[in-house]
């Protein structure tokens, strides 16, 4: 993999992550302005959970709750840097750069540990 191609791939990961999250957050936000944060686009019973509650997301997405759509977008945004580091691991591997593959892999592991273990 050439350095140019590597950069293009990492950049594309960021563009895709930002694009998906901006679209979801934008759609959810506009929907919330239209029908309120406790509403549901699917016309089911209004949401009772606080908007800060990220639990039970699949069911609330199925009900097309604006808050749930924004939450999915926020999760996509938070996952973007992680995806970027993961893409860098692959990139350095394909560049046969052992030192930086090891460094990036270590960063990825520390990152995943701090997200899923330290809380």
């Amino acid at each position: 993999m050439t350095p140019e191609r590597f950069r293009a791939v990492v950049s594309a990961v960021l563009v895709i992550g930002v694009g998906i999250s901006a679209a979801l957050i934008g759609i959810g936000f506009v929907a919330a302005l239209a029908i309120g944060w406790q509403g549901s686009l699917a016309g089911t019973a209004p949401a009772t959970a606080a908007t800060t509650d990220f639990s039970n997301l699949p069911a609330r997405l199925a009900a097309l709750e604006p808050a749930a759509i924004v939450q999915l977008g926020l999760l996509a945004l938070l996952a973007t840097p992680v995806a970027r580091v993961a893409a860098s691991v692959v990139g350095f591997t394909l560049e046969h750069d052992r030192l930086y593959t090891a460094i990036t892999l270590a960063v990825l592991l520390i990152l995943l540990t701090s997200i899923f273990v330290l809380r």
Partner: protein
Amino acid sequence: MTPQADLGIFAISVAAGLIGALAGVGGGILVIPALTFGFGVDIHLAVGASIVSIIATSSGAAAAYVRDRMTDMRVGMFLELATTTGAVCGALLAAVVAPVFLFVLLGVVLLGSAAMQVARMGEETPPADPPSALARRLRLESSYPDRHLGREVPYSARRIPLGFVLMWIAGVVSGLLGIGSGVLKVLAMDGVMRLPMKVSSATSNFMIGVTAAASAGIYLARGDVDPQIAAPVALGVLAGALAGSRLLHHVSNRTVRLVFLPVLVAVGLETIGRGLGFGL
């Protein structure tokens, strides 16, 4: 939130994204006071929104910076090793260390660095000395295209061990105090490792998203991320960061320093204020 408040938060966030993308910082210093003082948002929700703002600035600006060779990916990944381990240590230390003294100490260090920034204001690019053996070995030497100067600017990282240690401390501090991670990164790359200002800013931008993502789970689980506030913040910051990342090419290193300096002073004063018990 009323539609007026939504619009106000969006506008502030555009500014935060723009400044953040240029200066290599997350914009929390602008977003948090604006939300709490301007719109009466609870401090915890404001901090949660600022985490979202940091990641949005980073990912929004870095897409362009990585593609255009403004971000040094090797420097970024090498130093992320220091900041992420530091952040984990900081989060663990938070339970045992009383941060009051640390807040004041950090604030003084930041204001001291501001004086150094003023002294360096006349310098467009750092002196181009031959790369050290360590910089060659770690491949921390490269060049970036400067459209303002109209040429390729070569550079290599100096004082790498000291830079690495400072980055580790930057990670500890941001894990412990939750602030200043962007300014400390820029200071370490520009001031200690002597990378060009634009490369320092773009590489800091690249890194801050990872640092923030590491702690984002904690804020989510605590219920500090509220879509009602985070949505206008994220959309505004992304728009601002995309605009800022277009702008960086065309301004001089000196201009970047001019944008960075007031942010540095503001973070320094805010940090001391928090240590002394007033402020946020």
